[in-house]
């Protein structure tokens, strides 16, 4: 019924007209008092509902009509409150519960740290505790989150940003760690020496003293950039660093065959399916195929999985592909070119990055046993620098080494 909650707040009663004439009573009251749910009970008496204030207005009218009323049911807030006021402990408990809920919700229950990798969570939590953020802290005593964040950022070393977010009774501290450059590896003093015999084409010393010049001829093991700097008494060993490039000669003996065998798939293939149980396979498809003269078989096993377990059941697909071998004959010129090409590629791979072939000279060439034998000399410009640690043995140089190492560390 519309507005029934208003009735509920004001309180209403179900009333029985215990004695008196129903029709007369209805005619009297309906225009003056609001009644609803008017019906006859099993005892043949009229019963109806009326709000509490209206009920008191109703009584004189009933008395005048010579009737009597009896209240059957009481509903609504006023009656609830009256009942509650009789049960003091219950009411106190209800109030206490609300109060406790409110009081406990003003405490901080959980502090979480997020985003830290190198910095220990304990360290951050300790810093937070020092700033007054810890479990069972009373929220109003905590500082503003933005202020907390800036203070925490100052307190925790190695962070670039700290965010503090308060979600109800939970405080989340988000940390962004400062990026640190990788520590440089410590190195002992060293020279740069020649890797092979060569003619120097370029020398750039970043650290240390260059000992050779451009167009100098050096032998394997010669010092190119010295790690000992200074003169006379005032010398110290440093980590020499630099780039040295030189012309190096490589002699290659190449044997290039005149016939080349190549393998290829013809495109024809047979497929077979198997059912795998344990380590046995049962062929289920692909019967009655013509076998190939030469073929390669590729198999793929798929096992059933149940969660993290692999079951001993599965299926296998097998593809048999026909293979054909072709032999091609090359002329001597072609074989030579192929051999040289391969030699160049091998050479550049062996000489390290930045190597450039400057020239090549064919020394000797002859054909025998279906192969072209070539002897070729390559001139390659490549890096010839190689590190060699400086070993100092004389006792009076020991302290110098230490100072040298120190200098290196600082570097």
């Amino acid at each position, binding site marked *: *019924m519309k507005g029934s909650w208003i009735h509920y707040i004001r309180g209403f009663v179900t009333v029985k007209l215990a004695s008196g004439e*129903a*029709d007369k009573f*209805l*005619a009297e009251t*309906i*225009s003056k008092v*609001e*009644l*609803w*749910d*008017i*019906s*006859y009970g099993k005892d043949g008496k*009229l019963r*109806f509902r009326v709000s509490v204030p209206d009920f008191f207005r109703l009584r004189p009218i009933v008395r005048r009509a010579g009737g009597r009323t009896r209240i059957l049911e009481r509903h609504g807030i006023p009656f609830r409150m009256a009942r509650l006021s009789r049960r003091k402990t219950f009411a106190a408990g209800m109030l206490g519960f609300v109060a406790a809920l409110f009081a406990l919700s003003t405490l901080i229950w959980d502090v979480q740290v997020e985003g830290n990798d190198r910095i220990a969570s304990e360290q951050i939590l300790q810093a937070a505790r020092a700033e007054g953020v810890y479990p069972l802290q009373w929220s109003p005593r905590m500082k503003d989150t933005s202020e907390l964040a800036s203070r925490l950022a100052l307190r925790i070393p190695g962070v670039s940003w700290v965010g503090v977010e308060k979600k109800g009774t939970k405080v989340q501290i988000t940390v962004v760690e400062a990026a640190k450059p990788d520590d440089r590896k410590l190195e002992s003093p060293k020279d740069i020496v020649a890797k092979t015999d060569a003619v120097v084409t370029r020398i750039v010393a970043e650290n240390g003293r260059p000992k050779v010049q451009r167009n100098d001829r050096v032998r394997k093991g010669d010092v190119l950039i010295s790690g000992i700097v200074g003169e006379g008494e005032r010398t110290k060993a440093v980590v020499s660093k630099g780039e040295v490039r030189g012309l190096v000669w490589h002699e290659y003996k190449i044997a290039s065959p005149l016939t080349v065998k190549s393998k290829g798939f013809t495109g024809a293939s047979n497929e077979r399916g198997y059912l795998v149980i344990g380590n046995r396979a049962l062929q289920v498809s692909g019967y009655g195929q013509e076998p190939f003269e030469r073929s390669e078989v590729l198999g793929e096993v798929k096992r059933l999985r149940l969660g993290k377990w692999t079951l001993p059941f599965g299926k296998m697909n097998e593809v048999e592909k026909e293979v054909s071998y072709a032999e091609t004959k090359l002329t001597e010129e072609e074989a030579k070119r192929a051999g040289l090409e391969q030699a160049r590629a091998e050479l550049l791979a062996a000489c390290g990055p930045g190597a450039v072939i400057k020239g090549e000279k064919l020394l000797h060439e002859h054909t025998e046993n279906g192969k072209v034998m070539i002897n070729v000399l390559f001139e390659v410009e490549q890096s010839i620098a190689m590190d060699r640690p400086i070993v100092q043995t004389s006792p009076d140089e020991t302290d110098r080494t230490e100072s040298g190492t120190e200098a290196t560390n600082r570097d």
Partner: protein
Amino acid sequence: MPRVVRKLRNWTARILDLPRDVVLDLPRVTMIGGLQLTVENHRGVLHFSPESLRLAMDKGEMEVTGHELVIRNIGAEEVLVEGRITGVQLKA
């Protein structure tokens, strides 16, 4: 209501195509199956029992018959009756 006034109102309602109950203060009865019945423009309850409800009208009376009748709501203008309604009768 004087006769002239009623004639005039009747004429207005006819000319302007107005609902008669609005203009002429006639009872308006809305019935939902045999379950619910609303009567507007009544003039009071004459008799009420589980089997019948007699309502006073401007002219004559109206009787609602049925079983287990309940007046859900009653106001100065409107009555809402529920129950197993079997008949509605107008008596001039």
